[in-house]
Each structure stands twice: as C-alpha cells, then as structure tokens.
C-alpha cells in the first residue's frame, strides 16, 4: 500500500519536473501512459490530442502494438475518447460486454483485443479541452472512483505540461518572426538611403521607387532592398525608369 503511494507520488513529481526543464513532449506523454498502466494495473493506455479539425489524434500509447494503435485510430470517428474530448467530461464503461450499441464499431474491436472496461478522462484546463487520456482495463470495473480521481489528477498535470510546451513553442516562433521582420525593415531603410542619395530625392520618393521596382519585377520588397544593400543591384537600375 505504502509502496503504491510512493510510486504515485513519484509519478507526480516526475510529471511536475517536466514543467520546469526543457523536455521532449512526445517522450513525456509516452512515459505518462506507461506509468498509468503500471500504477492502475491496466492493460493499456493512450493519449489523444485535438487536431486542427475539432477531432482527436493519437499522440502517445503505452505500447506500440498495431492492434492498440488501430483501436485508438478507430476512436477518431467514434468512441469514449471522442465523447470525452467533446464534452470535457469523464466517459466510462465498466463492462464492455453490454455496451455494443453505445459505440457500435469501437466496442467489438476493443473486446476482441481483450479489453473489458474503458475510461476516458478529459485533458482539460478550465474551459479548454485539448484531448483525452484513454485507459483500457483487462477486466470489467478496472478502475474504481478513488483510482479515477487519481488518474484525473495525472491527466490535469499532463494538460498543464502540454499547454506550457505549446506556449513556449509559440513564443519561439514569434521571436523568429520578430527578428526576421526587424532585419527586413532595416534593409528597407538602408535601401531607401541608397536610392535617396543616388537620385538626390527625399526618402518618400526613394521608397516609392523601391516599391515600384519590386512590383514591376514581381519581387518582394525586402529582396530588392537586400540586393541594393549587398550591391548586387545598382541604384541606377532601380531609379532609371522612375521619373520624378
């Protein structure tokens, strides 16, 4: 009893650790599903995350046997995971043997794979549902209420980890875009200076000439600016056909 409590506590610590360090999200999710199987004496577990089209896709599973993966993939159209994702609520079936009209395609497949009960826990933070944790039992009633509460707590910590990871990735993307945009703007201003000096015109007119050249040659403004700054393109060429 104490040993299981230790293992559960250790799992929480390990999951929480990932919130601090840079971590591999796929590895993290896979380990989480494997820990669930171990801690809750399950037959298998999987984690499905929302895709771009309001459905789910398998992101991790406790083993990579084809049969298990296909069972998760089947749930893209129907099944406890999809219901859990859509409602943001726990969805469970303690005994798959009398549930065939609930999920007419999923249930027979799950049973023939040897699963007798299924529990889908939402990956949810307040109003945002990002997926579902799918727990499969080899026996009916594989999880009782206290165990389900523990499992939901693990799902909650996993949700925070995933959202943190996504937020960090978004920040990195914005940073790259910002740096690129800053350098582009600097190039354009330098190019304006080159043209303004060459043609002895104001910056506005230099900019107009730059834009006109880019339009006429079907090139991006920043590429024309870069060519001018790098002296691959002569100011004379850009100005020549632009009459003040």
């Amino acid at each position, binding site marked *: 009893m104490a040993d299981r409590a230790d293992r559960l506590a250790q799992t929480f610590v390990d999951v929480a650790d990932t919130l601090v360090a*840079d971590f591999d999200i796929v590895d993290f999710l896979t380990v989480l599903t494997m820990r669930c199987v171990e801690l809750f004496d399950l037959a298998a577990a999987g984690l499905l995350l929302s895709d771009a089209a309001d459905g789910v896709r398998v992101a991790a599973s406790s083993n990579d046997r084809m049969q298990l993966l296909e069972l998760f993939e089947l749930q893209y159209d129907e099944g406890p995971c999809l219901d859990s994702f859509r409602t943001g609520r726990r969805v469970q079936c303690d005994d798959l043997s009398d549930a065939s009209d609930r999920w007419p395609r999923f249930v027979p497949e799950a049973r023939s794979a040897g699963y007798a009960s299924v529990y889908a826990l939402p990956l949810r933070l307040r109003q945002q549902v990002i997926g579902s944790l799918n727990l499969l039992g080899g026996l009916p009633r594989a999880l009782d209420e206290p165990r389900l509460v523990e499992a939901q707590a693990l799902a909650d910590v996993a949700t925070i980890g995933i959202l943190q990871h996504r937020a*960090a*990735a978004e*920040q*990195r993307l*914005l*940073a*790259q*875009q*910002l*740096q*690129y*945009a*800053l*350098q*582009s*703007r*600097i190039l354009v*201003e*330098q*190019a*304006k*200076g*080159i*043209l*303004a*000096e*060459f043609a002895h015109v104001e*910056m506005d007119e230099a900019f107009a000439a730059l834009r006109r050249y880019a339009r006429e040659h079907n090139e*991006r403004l*920043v590429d024309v600016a870069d060519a001018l*700054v*790098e*002296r691959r393109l002569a*100011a004379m060429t850009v100005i020549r056909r632009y009459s003040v």
Partner: protein
Amino acid sequence: MEIGRLGRLFADLYRAGDGRETRDRESVATRACIACVELLEVGGAGIMLVDDDGRASAFGASDAVWAGTVEELQFVLGEGPGVDAHQHGEPVLEPELARVDGRRWTAFTPAALHAGVRRVFSFPLRAGAIRVGALDLSDGVPGPLGRQQRIDAVVMAEVVTRRLLATQAGALPGRLGSELDDDARALRVEVHQAAGMLSEQLDIRSPDALVLLRAAAYASERPIDQIAHEVVVRRLRFDDGPV
C-alpha cells in the same frame, strides 16, 4: 507595490499606442522600460533587441539620462553589460561601475561613468533558446540589487519579452506588427537611412557605413540619432561633395 498600481502599470503596458509615432509615451518599448523602472525601483531601464549575429535592431529607454546613455553607448560601441548578457544568456550584474576592471568594456565604462551612470544590471531577453536581446537597468548611485529586486528583474525580463513578442502576433508575414513598425525612433530608422546614404557617397557597403556613423558619434560625443539626422537632411556629408 500595491495591487492597484501594479494593475495600472500592466494595463498601461498592454494598451496599444494610438499610432502617433512622434510621442514617446506611445512607444511600446519605452512603456515597457517605464514599467520596469516603477516595478523594480531603479533609476533607469533600457531594452536592446539584437539578432543572433549581434546586429542591433531596436531599442527602448525610460529616460535620456542613464538608460538612454546605456543604450546609446552599447549601440555605438557594440560593447556593454547588455551585449554580454545577450551573448552569454546570463545576467550581468555590475553594482559599482567605478570599480570595474579596466579590461572590461574599455570604452563603455568611462563613457557611462562620465554620463553619471554608477551601476548597471543586465538581464537577457529570451524565448526559450532564442535570444532576442537584453534588459538593462541603470542608476546614478552605486550598490547591489536586493535579492527580491533581482528575482523581480528576471520576471520583468520575461514580461518585457512577452510584451514585445505580442507586438508580432497578427503581423503580416515578413512585416513587423504595427506597434513596432510605426516606431521610427525605436528602430533607429534615420541611422539606417543615413548608412544607406553614406554607402552611396563613399562607395562602401552599408554595414561599413554604419561602423563609420558609430565611430563619428563616438568621436564627436554626439548622439548617433543626431548625426544620422544631419546626414538625412543633407547638412552633413562624409565625402567631399557639396552639402
């Protein structure tokens, strides 16, 4: 720092400027610096944005005296605590600038002291592994940062980074978001225009023209923005041509 004031500071930091580029109050970079001064209780705060190649791209400063000096010197000289913090990805803390080893920032230190700066603390601005610049805190009196100040400064570096990155959300591809795009001063637009003009005047590459401008600013002890403006309005040339 009572909650109401904290809330107002953040609200002010996050409100959009009304687009008039000439007023410093609207500059998101300036507002971020002012928020840092208020929250961290230091004399001045400056921001430098730098790309991975060390090319400075934008700046902000809470004032012209200390923070403005620090940012100006780092841009002109290419050295300083913020430059180091950005390059190494670690805070650079200098509580007594007057006692700095002569080999550290050989040009920056005397010039900063001359302007009255007595301490500087620089914190890297980062989005994960991507380094975007530094937050430079400065003051006219020496002395270390308190432990809580240091913790708060690390948090503010994160807040400032997020605020600056937020300007980019919703921007057109390849373009700056409008808050920075309209901020000619933060982008040092005239400096880059002047570099372009000089590269034509002297038949040199623009990066070399920029080095010339920086050298001219340092030698004449005038702000680089001023010299650049003289070039752009054609009161100053670097060749022998007529003005």
